[in-house]
């Protein structure tokens, strides 16, 4: 049992408990999202002791050195004096300007932002409801060209945030949007390099953004997009992507269906397996992987073994909040 001190308040962290869990149990108002060390919503600062290394995971060096850490990844090893993030930090209020269904469970949500140039297609942001409920979503468009961010939001069974976006959030409502995060985006160098894009479910969101960005920059190498789902009804934008592939000769698009017989125009099997089978040698390719964490990790390794350089493999694993079933 270690004490957590915040200003003049003393809270107790039970053995094996994370700082986040302890503070939530004590009804301390702290923003959080994925609880898996990814979204960085729950960054807090230690004012006295050095936090455990694993709690500082992927934070920037500058944050690490100032004692910041992820509350959801920190099981304290001693008493700590903490500073909670100001609720305002890094978030801005933005207006919803579009919301429409793309298939039976996935919604396109469009939010206007003032400083669109700071956001890159393929990065992610945290969206926060007024009560603090926070989730991470990837940017599916080129923000700079429209002054807006587009997200693909799949309604998860029991998902508090996604159900709210689907059922209650309306055009004109406001939502808090964080700074952009993540490194899964297109860099306009080596334009002749092949790009292999593999996504499952709403993994198409960052890939569609990256794809649009690459085409806008005049990428000349082959661009191969594989988008997969269990059933055809869970894919979306298939006609739009087919049209895009007709317009750009260097772009190919393969929608994949992993369950049952694939209808005409769809490849049977998982997107990652179909894509890897079509590319025995990836030694000169840049690879983007977005979607289910197991698919992403597994394909990352396979792409590397097929010769892709580590620095050329970009991953965005979608972590579902562990409280999705609440």
């Amino acid at each position, binding site marked *: 049992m270690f004490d957590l001190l915040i200003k003049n308040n003393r809270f107790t962290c039970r053995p094996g408990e994370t700082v986040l869990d302890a503070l939530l149990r004590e009804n301390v108002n702290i923003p959080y999202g994925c609880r898996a060390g990814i979204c960085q919503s729950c960054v807090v600062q230690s004012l006295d002791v050095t936090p455990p290394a694993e709690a500082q995971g992927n934070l920037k060096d500058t944050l690490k050195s100032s004692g910041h850490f992820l509350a959801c990844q920190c099981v304290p090893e001693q008493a700590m004096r903490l500073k909670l993030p100001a609720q305002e930090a890094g978030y801005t209020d933005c207006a919803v300007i579009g919301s429409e269904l793309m298939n039976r469970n996935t919604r396109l949500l469009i939010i206007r932002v003032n400083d669109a140039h700071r956001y890159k297609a393929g990065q992610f942001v945290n969206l926060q409801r007024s009560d603090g409920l926070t989730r991470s979503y990837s940017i599916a468009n080129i923000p700079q060209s429209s002054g807006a961010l587009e997200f693909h939001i799949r309604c998860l069974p029991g998902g508090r945030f996604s159900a709210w976006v689907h059922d209650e959030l309306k055009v004109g409502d406001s939502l808090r949007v964080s700074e952009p995060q993540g490194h899964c985006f297109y860099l306009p160098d080596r334009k002749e390099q092949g790009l292999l894009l593999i996504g499952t479910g709403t993994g198409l969101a960052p890939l569609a953004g990256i794809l649009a960005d690459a085409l806008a920059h005049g990428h000349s190498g082959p661009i191969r997009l594989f988008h997969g789902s269990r059933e055809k009804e869970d894919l979306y934008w298939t006609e739009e992507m087919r049209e895009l592939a007709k317009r750009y000769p260097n772009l190919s698009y393969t929608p994949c269906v992993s369950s049952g017989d694939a209808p005409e125009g769809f490849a049977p099997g998982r997107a990652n397996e179909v894509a890897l089978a079509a590319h025995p040698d990836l030694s000169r390719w840049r690879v983007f992987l977005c979607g289910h964490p*197991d698919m992403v*990790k*597994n394909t*990352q*390794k396979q792409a*590397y*073994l097929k*010769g892709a*350089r*580590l620095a050329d493999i970009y991953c965005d694993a979608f972590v579902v909040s562990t409280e999705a079933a609440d």
Partner: protein
Amino acid sequence: MSDSLYERIGGEAAVNAAVELFYRKVLNDYRINRFFDKTDMDSQLAKQKAFFTYAFGGPNHYTGKDMRSAHARLVKMGMDGSHFDVVMEHLGATLHELNVPGELIAEAAGIALGARSDVLGL
């Protein structure tokens, strides 16, 4: 005093280049790939990086005791001297492929060999 092996071999850039080639060789080698974690590549790569920094005599925080505890699980799985030798083989081949001069390869191999008994828990 002359530069350390780590500096002469090319520092962190050399470590990164070596890990890129070495880990691919290791994962493709049926003799030893079962000892490498099946899923989490990112944490494996961090370990490979630490290994090369160590073999190049660079800044690292490893002690013999760490080496023992880190590899104890693998020894239980049946890791022995033959597997250690395979890793040494890939270490040499990797550095050769990167055109590291023979005498520097020998130096790095010597450092890695020095960890043999700790790694194998002997």
